[in-house]
C-alpha cells in the first residue's frame, strides 16, 4: 500500500517539479529585458559574463562580499546539498557510476555539514533582529523541511538503518514504470515524504532563486551598451509607431 502511495506521490511530484520549473524558466526567458542594467563594474564580453556567473553560482561571490556569516553557512549548506544529492544517484543507477562510488564517503560527511549549515542559517533567522524581521513563516518552514530531510536521512545512516537495497530496487522500478516494494520504515517514509514536498513547493516558492539567478539582468548582461544597440521588441515598436 505504502509503496503504491509513494509511487504515485513521486510520479506526481516529479511531474509538477519538471513542468513547473520549465514553465518558470520559459517565462523568465520570454520576458524581455528592455534596458541594459548590469551592476557595474561588469564584464564587457560574453566570456566575462560566463566567468562572473560561474563565480556567483559556485562561490556565491556577492554574498561573500556582503556578509561572511551568511556566506559561510549558506555556502556550506549548498555545497553539502550538492554532494549529498550526487551521492543519492547511487539509488538511481545500476551499475553505480565509478565517480559516484568514489564520493560516497564524502557524501556522508556532507550530510552532517548540510545540517550544520541549515542550523546556522536558522539561528540567524531566529536571533538576528533584522533577519527575524524580514522572515515569513514560510522562510522558517522551508528550513524545517530541509532540516527534516537531512536529519531523517542521517538517522537512517547512523541510527536506524533501512534496507537500502530494497529502496534502490523501488526507485529503479519507478524509473521503469514498475512499482516494487518499499521497506516499511517510518523514518524512510518521513524522509521520502519530505523530499516529495520539496519537489512540489520548488516551482512555487523562493526556491526559484536557483533558476532565477541565471536570468538576473544585473548579473548576466554584458556591459557594452555604447558598442551595440540593445533593443527589446516592445521598445522597438515605439520607434515604428512614430
Amino acid at each position, binding site marked *: 500500500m505504502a509503496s503504491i502511495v509513494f509511487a504515485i506521490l513521486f510520479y506526481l511530484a516529479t511531474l509538477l517539479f519538471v513542468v513547473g520549473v520549465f514553465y*518558470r524558466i520559459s*517565462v*523568465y526567458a520570454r*520576458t*524581455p*529585458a*528592455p534596458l*541594459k*542594467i548590469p*551592476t*557595474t*563594474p*561588469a*564584464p*564587457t564580453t560574453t566570456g566575462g559574463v560566463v566567468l562572473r556567473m560561474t563565480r*556567483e553560482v559556485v562561490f*556565491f561571490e*556577492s*554574498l561573500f*562580499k*556582503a*556578509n561572511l556569516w*551568511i556566506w559561510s553557512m*549558506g555556502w556550506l549548506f549548498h555545497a553539502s546539498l550538492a554532494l549529498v544529492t550526487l551521492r543519492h544517484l547511487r539509488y538511481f543507477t545500476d551499475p553505480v557510476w565509478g565517480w559516484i562510488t568514489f564520493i560516497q564517503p564524502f557524501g556522508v560527511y556532507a550530510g552532517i555539514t548540510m545540517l550544520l549549515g541549515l542550523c546556522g542559517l536558522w539561528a540567524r533567522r531566529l536571533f*538576528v*533582529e*533584522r*533577519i527575524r*524581521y*524580514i*522572515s*515569513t*513563516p*514560510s*522562510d522558517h*518552514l522551508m528550513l524545517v523541511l530541509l532540516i527534516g530531510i537531512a536529519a531523517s536521512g542521517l538517522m537512517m545512516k547512523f541510527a536506524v538503518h533501512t534496507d537500502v537495497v530494497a529502496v534502490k530496487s523501488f526507485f529503479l522500478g519507478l524509473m521503469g514504470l514498475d512499482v516494487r516494494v518499499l521497506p516499511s520504515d517510518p523514518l524512510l517514509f518521513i524522509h521520502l515524504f519530505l523530499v516529495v514536498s520539496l519537489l512540489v513547493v520548488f516551482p*512555487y*516558492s*523562493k526556491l*526559484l*532563486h536557483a533558476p*532565477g*539567478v541565471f*536570468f*538576473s*539582468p*544585473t*548579473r548576466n548582461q554584458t*556591459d557594452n*551598451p*555604447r*558598442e*551595440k*544597440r*540593445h*533593443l527589446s521588441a*516592445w*521598445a522597438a515598436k*515605439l*520607434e515604428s509607431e512614430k
Partner: protein
Amino acid sequence: MADITAPAYRTIPIVPALKPGAMEGKGPFVASDKINEAIGFPGQLVEDWHDKAIAKMGDLLSKYRSLKVYMDACVHCGACSDKCHYFIGTQDPKNMPVARQDLMRSVYRRYFTLPGKMFPKLVGARDLTREVLDEWYNYFNQCSECRRCSVFCPYGIDTAEVTMAAREILDSVGYGQKYSNEIIGKVHKIGNNLGLPGPALLDTLEGLEEDVKDATGVDVKFPMDVKGAEVLLITPSADFFAEPHIDSLIGYAKVFHATGTSWTLSSMSSEAGNFGMFIGNYDQLRAIAMRIRQAALELGVKRIVVGECGHAWRVAYSFWNTLTGVGDGADANDRFAQMLQKQLDHRYKQPTHICEFTWDMIQDERLSFDKSKNDKHIITFHDSCNVARGSRMGDYAGGQFEIPRNIIKACANNFVEMDPRTTREQTFCCGGGGGLLTDDLLDLRVKGALPRMEVLQQVKDEHGVNFMATICAICKAQFTKVLPIYGFDRKLVGGVHQLVSNAIILGEDK
C-alpha cells in the same frame, strides 16, 4: 526646518538596531492635479486604483524580466539588510532593501502566485489596501535607486528596479511625487529641469565668459546652438547657475578651449538629467532623451559629451543607445538609429563622459597643469552611485573609478582615499539621489548622508581633507545642503572639473 539635526556618528559602524515606524509618514509631497496631468498621468488617485494598480503591475511583470525574476528569487537571506544608507541613517526596518522590496513582493505574491492566493499569511502575502498603497508611496520615495544593495545580493536583485516599478504603478493611478513630476514637466516645456529659458541661459553664459576673462585674461567661449560644432555638450542644468556646479562648467569650457575643440551647448536640449528614470517610466525616459537626439541631428555634431552628473551618465551610457540611437552598433536596417549613428564620429565613444574626454586629452599631452594651484586642497573623491554601479568609462570594467581619480592626480598634488568599504562599487549614495533632492525630504536626506559623513570625518581628522570632489550634480547639491548640518564647511564639496579649472594652463590668448 530648524528641527532637522544630524544623527550621531556610529562609534564603530555596526548595524543599527531597528526602530520600526521611524520614517512612517515622512514621504515627500504628493504631486498636484496640474503637475500630474501636464505629463499625462491621472491628476489624483483614481477611483478604481486597486484594479488599475494590479493591472499595471501585471503589465510591468510581462515587460521587465528584472522585475519578474526579482519578485520570485529573493530568499530573505539578509545580505542586503544592512547595506542601505537610508536604513543606516533612519533605522527604519522598512528601509532595508529586502523589506522595501517586500512591500511590493507581498502584493505580487497575493495576486500573481498560487501559494499567495491560497495561504497568504504563510508566505507573507497581502492585499493591496489603501494602507499598503500609502506605504508604497512613503517607502518607495525613500529609495535613491543607488543600487548598493544589488552589489551584495547573491542574485543581483536590484531594489532600484523595484522602486522604479512601484513609482510607475503609483503614477499610473494618480499618486505621483511632486518634485520629480514637476521637474519632468519643466523639461518637456522648457528644455531643462530648472526651467531656465533660452535667453536666460545665453545671459548666464555671456556672464561666465566675462568672469573667466577677468580671472584669466583669456577669451574662453561658452557657445550656444552653434551648427556644425564638433562636440555637443549635454550637462545638468544645475551647472549653469548653482554653486559649486558652475565651477565645473567653467572647467569643461577651459578644457575645450585649451584643446582647441569646437563645441556647443543646445538651448533646446539644455539638460543631461533624466528624471524619467527615477519614476521608472519608459515613455518619459525616452521622450526626455529624444531631445538630445534631436539637438544632435539639428546641430550636426560629431560627438556628444556629457557633463558631471551621476544618473544622467547612467542614462546616457547605458540607455541612450537603446532609447535614441546615440551610440554605435545599430543593425544596418535600423533606420532610426543609423540616421544618427552615421553622423557621429566613431573613433570616439558615443556618448563620451567629460572625464573620458579630459583624460584622453591629458594622455595625448594636449593639456598641461600647474598642480600647485590646487595645493590649498587636500582632496578625496566621492564615487557617485549611478556612475559607480550603473555605468562605465573607458575601455575596461572599472574605468569609471580610475579615470576621475587619474584626472584629479594629474591636476593636484594631495589626494587621499576614503575607507575602501565606502568607495568604488561599494560607494554610498550622497543621500539625495533618485528624485529625493527636495526640501520636503530634508530629514531623510540628512540621515541618508550619515555613512558618507562618517568616513569623510575620518579622512578630515586623519589627513586634513578639505575638498571632496565628485562628478554628480545631485551629489554636489545634496552635500552643499547637508555638510553644514554635520558641522563641515559647505564649500568642501566640488567637481572634478573645478580642480581641472583651477590648475589648467590656458596658454596665450589668441
